[in-house]
């Protein structure tokens, strides 16, 4: 087990290193960062001075080492637009994004598991066919357009829910959250639903195929022979056994929710780090882009690592075939 963990941590560090190289290559080799720092009418001397000042006249490997050293110290440079350190700006916006992604995940589970269970246990019923057809629609819907339509329907036409912003937050143990007040939930509901739509179809399909397989297993026949109620068989025996793959996949999908929140946050003006990234891209605020990419890569690698280790703790077979997985 320990050897497995050490090997996985080593792989995770290697991925981070490769990503660092790619990001460095993208920002320092493809584009010349000097032009982002000097005014358009700068003279040749001014350009050279900035180049020396920031060490861009050094050979590439020197620059890369300096880049690595700065990142290891959490120094991603200062945002051109906001002025403050880029890393701090990202961290400041992170809780709002994580809250949105978490709320979306919660909705995907709450909507997806019951629908998937129903479709899996009654595969021939008409509602089950409707659910499966709906799930094709679910992963075909362009997220950004659904977001617009949600605003159109619930904010503009019906006027039930606010279209933009995060609403009031309550501080719990130093973490600001809008999940504890009604007004906070009113603001959270639409963006979270928008983000959740991507994953509802996935949860429905996973749950359905899991339930179809589990329903044929011996332990279910045995439970039925024992005379247990259908509610107990489905709720305890089947659900318990299909939850492991669902939880694993959802853990991995959390990262993609964080990534997709760039779209949702922009539409709903949700003050998270995704919206910050898009603003940075539109204004070519490179330090902020680099900081965002590195933070998200580390988030991803950490999530994958945790899921892998948990999974191998639950299922020892994974450890033996760890290399091929």
């Amino acid at each position, binding site marked *: 087990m320990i050897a497995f963990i050490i090997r996985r941590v080593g792989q995770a560090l290697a*991925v981070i290193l*490769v*990503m660092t190289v790619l990001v460095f290559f*993208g*920002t320092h080799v*493809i*584009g010349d960062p000097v032009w982002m720092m000097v005014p358009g009418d700068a003279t040749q001397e001014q350009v050279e001075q900035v180049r020396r000042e920031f060490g861009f006249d050094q050979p590439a490997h020197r620059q890369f080492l300096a880049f690595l050293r700065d990142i290891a110290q959490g120094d991603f440079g200062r945002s051109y637009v906001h002025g403050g350190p880029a890393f701090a700006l990202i961290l400041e916006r992170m809780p709002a994004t994580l809250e949105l992604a978490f709320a979306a995940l919660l909705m995907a589970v709450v909507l997806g598991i019951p629908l998937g269970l129903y479709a899996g246990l009654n595969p021939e019923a008409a509602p089950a066919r409707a659910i499966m*057809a709906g799930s*094709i*629609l679910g*992963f*075909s*819907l*362009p*997220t*950004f*357009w659904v977001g*617009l*339509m949600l*605003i*159109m329907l619930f*904010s*503009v*036409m019906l006027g039930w829910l606010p*279209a933009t912003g995060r609403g009031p937050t309550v501080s719990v143990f130093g973490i600001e959250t809008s999940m504890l007040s009604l007004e906070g939930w009113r603001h959270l509901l639409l963006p979270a639903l928008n983000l959740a739509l991507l994953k509802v179809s996935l949860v429905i399909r996973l749950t359905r195929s899991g339930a179809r397989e589990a329903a044929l297993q011996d332990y279910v026949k045995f439970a039925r022979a024992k005379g247990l109620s259908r509610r107990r068989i489905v709720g305890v025996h089947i659900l318990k056994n299909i939850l492991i793959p669902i939880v694993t996949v959802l853990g991995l999908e959390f*990262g*993609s929710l964080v*990534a*997709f929140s*760039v*779209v949702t946050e*922009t539409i709903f003006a949700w003050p998270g780090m995704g919206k910050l*990234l*898009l603003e940075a*891209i*539109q204004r*070519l605020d490179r330090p902020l*882009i680099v900081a965002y*990419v590195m933070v*998200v*890569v580390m988030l*991803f690698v950490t999530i*994958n690592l945790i899921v892998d280790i948990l999974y191998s703790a639950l299922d020892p077979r994974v450890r033996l075939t760890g290399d091929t997985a």
Partner: protein
Amino acid sequence: MSAEAGMPGAEMAGAGGLGRFARRFAEDRVALFGLVLLLVIAGLALIAPFIAPQNPYDLARVDIMDSRQPPGARAGDGFTMWLGSDGVGRDLVSGILYGLRISLAVGLVSGLIAAAIGMTLGLVAAYAGGRTETLIMRLVDLQLSLPSVLVALILVALLGKGIDKIILALVIVQWAYYARTVRGSALVERRKEYVEAARSLGLSHARTVFRHILPNCLAPVIVIATVQTAHAISLEATLSFLGVGLPQTEPSLGVLIANGFQYMLSGKYWISFFPGIALLVTIVAINLVGDRLRDVLNPRLER
């Protein structure tokens, strides 16, 4: 590639030729409907210049006085704008027809290039093995571990705007799916006797790989290609909506939807609504076809 090259792969999976494959596909009415829908959409996009009431690129035909008209209003030129008009007075029916052209073209071109690169790398990985395989597959793993929307967004941020840059970004986020799929099939195929026979005949490595192994790996690639094309069209629309995709001079469906965003809060829903419906119908049609192809081409479900 998906249309012409699909046939040998389909034959392999169906084992009874094209006719049987087509019959099996058509057994599912919903999938057949999806296919017909897709053909109609592609046809409309192809002949857009001949059927659109207005050329949205022709500034002489577009009248600012017609802007933000609701569906069914009459344009200054006398024709009826069945779906209304956008912020600068372009008829939305025409805008959507021309937008479909761009959206479909970007999706198809990026898909073809990604398929060519991905399939080549996948075949090389499976055939060469060793270090080459490890290197290629590590690259695939790395690519697949990051969400495509994020990778595309960052790439476009670094590369800049423009149709060629969008296509490049879409190719980079797609190739790994093809590489992984083809490698999986090719690993099985390369151990078969016909490969040994081809080598014994003295055929070159390249000929063995591309003329003998590749055709037998195509069935799963066709399924991936449909899913990926739908994905690429959606991703291009997303990027264009976020303002980092195609410029206003190349109004894809995503650009049209983005243009309507600012008018939506004042209740002018149609500018974003109808192009979105066109996008949705296109993607659903492709996914319906893909879902059925997955069933028909899956050898495990072979009857």
